[in-house]
Each structure stands twice: as structure tokens, then as C-alpha cells.
């Protein structure tokens, strides 16, 4: 494969004397084959063009999680991203630090706040077995995808909810929480689910699937979040707007095949909450975006009933198949 010319457009960040970060964009020309990794080329730039270019990296093999950064507008591991797959038509590769986190220097961010969120979910087996666990072969089928997480922060960097709500615990922490909630050896599943039902935890995810898209290890955090919610509801943890919204949604669809958005609000946040949103409602009304308050049934309701029947017979796979080692 022959070499091509690329331009690395790198966001250089420096802390000024006032402690604020000053950013500028600097172009670096490189020559490489399409399958050369971004990390290899960043190293080349650091080695041959500017030794002060700063970024984290370590294993070179997508397992240590050091080198996640914004490449071509998305957060990716530099060590497994081919330059040819992220360059634009002019051969420009835009590289910047992860988003939603404080920048330290150039492409290096402060990883502290990310890990504080992980610590919040008590990231360790609680009250596990004292004796050796004999587990079924399928014991970890449920947690396999989440144990692949390397804590690189890609999902958090690309999370749209974290962008608007910094208090949101984020996809990685929730995926980690699911790892324990779904482990047959875990002894504190209910307490975990109670904690996860608090504001800014599992019910704050907007289910946009960006985390699933950006994860370099196929962890599928959103899938874990959905399973956590289902398990929370199954344990009767249905207080708060998140579960109420989900249940109201479910009720509408099952009964009429349609969402009654007019009453959905009331059922999610109550009368007071709805009053608070009257301003927004008024704006929507002006634009003719308020749906009819009168319920109307969809045409194919019988077919929908069949779908529900099948789902009830074959529920979404959220429980580990293995026998619990530590009964609750």
C-alpha cells in the first residue's frame, strides 16, 4: 500500500498563568499508509516535529484505555484508529481532547472527575461468597460485554446527556454497576438498584446510543442501562419521573397503540411539575405542536397485542441464567 499525505489538525491546549486553558489549532503534515494508526502518527509528530505535543498512551493494543481522544469528531482510541478511516476528503485529520471533562494540556484531560463517577457506584463485589463459587457455564453471559470495559472514557466524552447535565453519572459507571447487579455472586443487588434509581443515575440516560457507537470494546453501556431499569422496575422501584414516564409510555402503547403526550406529562411529573412546564406548552401550542388530548386507538391494535403476547412469553433477557450464589 502506498503512502499518502495527511494533515493532522491538532488542538493544542496550554494552561495560562491565570489557570485558564488557551486553545489553538496547529497543522502537522505526515505521510502514511491508510492503515497506519493515529497513535503511531502522533508519536511520529512528537518525535520528529514537536516533542512538546502531549497526549496519554501506553499499551498500543486497545486494552489499557489511555489514548481515547476526539478524532474526526468522535471519541476513539488513537491506537486502533486507522488514519484513512478518519481523514476528510482533503486528508485532514482533526484531533482534540475528550469532551465533557477538564483539559490539562493538549490532548490530555483530567481523568479525576471520570473516575470519581465510577467510584460512586461502589465498583467492587459486595458481600460476595466466602467459599469458592461453583458457577454455571453461562454465569457471565449477562456481564461479559460490560467486563470488557477498559475505562477509557470514550462513552462519557461522547455522551449527549453529560454534555447538558454534568451531574449525570454517565454510561461507563452505569455499565460497571450492571456488572455487579448481574453477577450471581453479588450480595447487594437491591441496594444497588435503589441507589441507581436516584436522580442523575440510570433514569437520566436519554437512550441516544452514542455510548454504544463510540465504545471501542463493544461494551454497549446503553444496553446495560436498559437492563438495569428493567430490573429496578421488577423490584418495584418505580418512584420518580423516570420510571413513571416509562410505565405511562408502556400503558399508552399497550392500550391504544398511541402515545397520549398530553397526559404523559402529568403522569410523569405530576400536576405541579406540569404547571412548571406550562410556558413550554404555550410555545408548543403557538407552533401547533400540542397533540390532541383525546385518546384515539391505532389501527393495528390486534397485531400490537400479539407483539406483547410474544414479549411476555419471551421476556427481554435481563437476568443472569446462573443460580444466584448469594441469595438476597
Amino acid at each position, binding site marked *: 500500500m502506498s503512502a499518502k499525505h495527511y494533515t493532522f489538525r491538532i488542538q493544542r491546549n496550554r494552561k495560562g498563568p491565570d489557570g485558564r486553558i488557551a486553545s489553538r489549532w496547529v497543522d502537522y503534515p505526515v505521510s502514511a499508509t491508510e492503515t497506519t494508526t493515529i497513535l503511531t502518527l502522533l508519536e511520529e509528530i512528537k518525535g520528529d516535529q514537536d516533542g512538546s505535543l502531549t497526549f496519554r498512551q501506553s499499551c498500543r493494543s486497545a486494552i*489499557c484505555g489511555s489514548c481515547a481522544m476526539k478524532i474526526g469528531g468522535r471519541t476513539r482510541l488513537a491506537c486502533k484508529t486507522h488514519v484513512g478511516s478518519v481523514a476528510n476528503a482533503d486528508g485532514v485529520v482533526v484531533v482534540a481532547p475528550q469532551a465533557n471533562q477538564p483539559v490539562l494540556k493538549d490532548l490530555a484531560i483530567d481523568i479525576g472527575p471520570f473516575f470519581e463517577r465510577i467510584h460512586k457506584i461502589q465498583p467492587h463485589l459486595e458481600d460476595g461468597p466466602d467459599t469458592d463459587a461453583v458457577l454455571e457455564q453461562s454465569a457471565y453471559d449477562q456481564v461479559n460485554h460490560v467486563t470488557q470495559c477498559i475505562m477509557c472514557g470514550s462513552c462519557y466524552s461522547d455522551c449527549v446527556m453529560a454534555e447538558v447535565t454534568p451531574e449525570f453519572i454517565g454510561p461507563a459507571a452505569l455499565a460497571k454497576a450492571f456488572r455487579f447487579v448481574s453477577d450471581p455472586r453479588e450480595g447487594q443487588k437491591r441496594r444497588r438498584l435503589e441507589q441507581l434509581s436516584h436522580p442523575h443515575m440510570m433514569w437520566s440516560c436519554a437512550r441516544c446510543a452514542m455510548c454504544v457507537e463510540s465504545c471501542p470494546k463493544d461494551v454497549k453501556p446503553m444496553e446495560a442501562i436498559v437492563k438495569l431499569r428493567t430490573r429496578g422496575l421488577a423490584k418495584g422501584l418505580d418512584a420518580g419521573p423516570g420510571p413513571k414516564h416509562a410505565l405511562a409510555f408502556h400503558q399508552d402503547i399497550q392500550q391504544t397503540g398511541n402515545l397520549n403526550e398530553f397526559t404523559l406529562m402529568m403522569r410523569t411529573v405530576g400536576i405541579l411539575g406540569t404547571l412548571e412546564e406550562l410556558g413550554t406548552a404555550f410555545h408548543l401550542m403557538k407552533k401547533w405542536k400540542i397533540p390532541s388530548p383525546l385518546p384515539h386507538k391505532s389501527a393495528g391494535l390486534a397485531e400490537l397485542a400479539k407483539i406483547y403476547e410474544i414479549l411476555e412469553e419471551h421476556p427481554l433477557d435481563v437476568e443472569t441464567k446462573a443460580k444466584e450464589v448469594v441469595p438476597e
Partner: protein
Amino acid sequence: MQSHDLIIVGAGLAGMRAALEGVKAGIDVAIVTKIHPLRSHSCAAQGGINAAINPQDSRDSHAFDTVKGADYIGDEDAIELMCHEAPEAILEMDRMGTPFSRIEGGLIAQRAFGGASFNRTCYAADRTGQVLLHTLWEQLVKAQVKVYEECSVMRLVTDREQAIAGVVAYDIKTGAVFALRAKAVLMATGGYGRVFLSNTNATTNTGDGMALALRAGAPLADMEFVQFHPTGLRTSGVLVTEGARGEGGYLINALGERFMSRYAPNKLELASRDVVSRAEQTEIIEGRGINGAVFLDLRHLGADKILERLPQIRQLSLDLEGVDAIHAPIPIRPTAHYSMGGIRTDKYGASPLHGLFAAGEAACVSVHGANRLGGNSLLDTIVFGRITGSHCARFVKGEKLRDFAASEVAAVKGNLDTLKSRPDQGVRPIALHHRMAAAMNLHCGVFRTVEGMREGVSELPGLREDYQKIHLDDHADDFNIDLLRAVELGHLIDLAECIVRGALAREESRGAHSRIDFPERDDAVWRKHTLSHWDGAKGEVILSHEPVRTLGRAEYAPKVRTY
């Protein structure tokens, strides 16, 4: 001045396992690590961890395989200790929450690995190191161990009686240089793969702990024994697990022949790593490779098995080599992987320097001798992390804090300032590193010649001279990776000298040390450890030797090693 009972340098498996032991014993323990614990290179171990947990297997058999694999230069007391502690160490990790793969019936699954007479390698798919590392980190968080994150140790400090007084650390995030006093220091800093140009290691594997110990007066042992892993990817050197062969993968040459039948007719691809690497290198030298590589062929395993047992290495081959292992053989070659040598310790991890301990790859206990068996390095970290951690806890209870001269901090600051302010004399650190690492690959690789090694030794003064001329582009205090790498390069040069001098002196072939001019093992003269010492007056490494710790068992008597 901040102080702790025990400072552990490095937060990989050995360091974290030791820290938990310290907490359990009620001592004040802190970890200093230049990268976040989860970034430690233990996570890159793929294939598994050995333990005789199957009733049909035995700890004695594991010990025998290890003594033989080590080519009779491992210390037998330490090997027996490791193999006997192995099952409990694994089951303990299981209780902490490691999701080991299971077999039907619920027990931990085990696979075949090289040089083993039983399928005793426990695993979690092909990411065993990662799940072990995450499990220990979880426990570290639970135990609330103090971690100085992204802080690099720049100097080991001793008092007038040559006993450990603490360390001088450098906070990478801020550039602050600070003292940490301690009654004991445990080095768990891993290996030095970056000494070699082609290696499976992380770029952060620069053998800092070994180099710091050497300069502080502790001997390093058996540095000439460098393991070349048989399956590093051709282009990047990144590791492909031995588990790929354990699951039935073939090694083939350019002609499509399973060439191992010529070198190890019984064990074939699952001979020990030194044997397989030499076979591959011979194939390549004799023209039966392609572009300096032979091939790992997994196609006959089928897509299902590859995706279930080896999903990560299939992805790595795709990402880094552009090859889908389901449909094509993976180009691989022998690649520098692991250091059998390290800081000399007894079986409890204590070095001859009072108050200095070591565990994991940074240590030479020595359980791996001249050649480590696959699956024994993860085991080494867990077992000796535990043993050394608890031994340190006992040690510090009888110790007081030693005098720590304030001038030590000033000296480190001075060195760093000198590096930062040096004018441009045209020597870039990366070019110097490349020169050294290329020379080591050339002169101290799979096969070694006397001319090559002499050439290697003769290049050392020039390397040291040019090291004094390197200049940095980054003059900032905060997050100065340019500076950190320059310091690490100094460590690598020291270690390269230990390796090449040790190799030149050892006039025999044993384990991973293979000389063209001395092709046989010479037990009469060379069944002994090489010790490297730093001679401050001469400014170079000098050698001495000491006997292997043997137990006199008949089954451990040296024999011709065939597989």
C-alpha cells in the same frame, strides 16, 4: 515531609495485590504510580494464569514443569512456593469477583499452554490480565488505599547505613518534586520491553524500578535472559496470546508447513517459548518466512471458536495487521516480551538492600530462571504480590523511619532542570532511543554472537555520551511527557548495559539466551545467577555471580530439555 510505612511503586497486579496485604495487616501503605492503575500493562496479558486446581493435576507437576522450563536456573524454593500457593491465589481472585471462564459443572476453565504437562492455565476468554487487573483495582478502591496517581519515582533514597529511607517522586500533572519517607519500598514496576525496538510491551514499560534499584545499590539478577514471545504481530510487535496455540492454532512457514515438527516433535506449537521462538527465527533466517515473519494459522478452529475464545486477538489482528484470523493466517515473529531478570530477591521478595523489596516482573525471585512458562507471569504477580506484601508488613513493624536528606529532593530538581534547559545540540531523545533499541534487537536478540554482543558493549559509551546531549522541546512544568521520557531513556540505557554485559559473559546457551559460539548448556560452570551492580566510580555495570537455590530433589536434576 509526608511518610508511610510502606511505599509500593507501580500499580499493576503485583503492586495492587501487595497493597491489599498491607492494608489487611494494618500498616500505612501508599502506591506511587506513573499511570492510573487500570492503565498498567498487566491488563495486556491475554491467555491465562497457571494453577493446579484440577484434582487430576498436581502442584508438584506444576513445579517440575517450571523448573524444567526455567532450564534449571530457577530458584527451586521459590518455584515450589509459587506452585503450591497458586490454587489458593486463583480461588481468592475468583472470590474477589474475577469472572473466570467456566466449564460445564461450574469449575474454572483451563486451557493448554506451552511447556506444561497438564491443561492448567485458567483464563477469562483472551483478556485474563484485564479482568484480574480490574478486580484488584476494585478491591483497592474498596480498601481506600492512598494512590499517588501519575507520579513517577525519580530516586530511591538510602540513609548513611545504606538502608531505604524513602523515594523522591515527581508529580507529572504539576511538575512538583516531593519526598516520601517510608520504612520500606516495594518495587512493582514491571519490565523493560522498550529496551528493544520490536517488543510486545507498552511504551510505559521502561524498567524504572530495576534501574532505580540498581543505582541505589541493589543488584539485578539474570538480566541476559530476555523472553522473545513467539507470536508478536509482524508490524507493531503487539502480542498474540499463546492461548491461540493452546486452543489448537498452528505455526506455518511460507511453504505452508507446520515446521514445529522439526524442532519439537512431541509438543509441537506448545513447546516452551524459547524453543518456539528459535524455531521461527531459524525458519525466517533460512528463507522460509515472508517479510521477516512466519504465520499463526487459526483458520481450522472455525469462526465460532475464534469468536468465543479469542475475540480480542481476532480484533487486534484486524486493527493492527489488517488480517482477519478467521480467513487468513496472521503474520507473526519472535518479539521481546518479558524479563526473566530483575531486582534480586529471596523467596519473600526481599532484596539485599535493607528495606527494598520487589515483586512481579521487576523482581528476580527467581521463579522463571532462563525461560518463563506462559501463564506463570500472572501467577508470579498474584502469588508474590501477596507474599511480599505480607512480608513487608511484618518487616516495617520492627523498623523506624530513617534519615532522609533534604538535598535528595534538590538533586532531583537539579537534574530535571538541567534536562529541561539544555541547549539544542542536535540529539533528539527519540533518535537516541531508536539507536539503542535497534542495537539491542540486532546484538541481543533470539540468537546471539560474540561479535554482535561485543559491538553492543562498545556502543554503550557513545550512547551515554549522547544521552548527556539530548534536549527537550517541552520546557513546561505541567504534564511534561517529553521530560518523563528523557528520564526513562536513562533507565533503559542502564538496563541495556546489564543485559548485553550479562549476555556476553555467559558463555553457554540456556533458555532464552542462545549463543551461536556456545550452543550447549554448561551446568558445570554456568548453573549460577548473574548479578549486575552499578559501579559509580567507573560509571558502568559490573558483574558477579551467585549459586542457584536448589533443594536437591532427584526430579529437579538438570536433564537435556526436549519438548
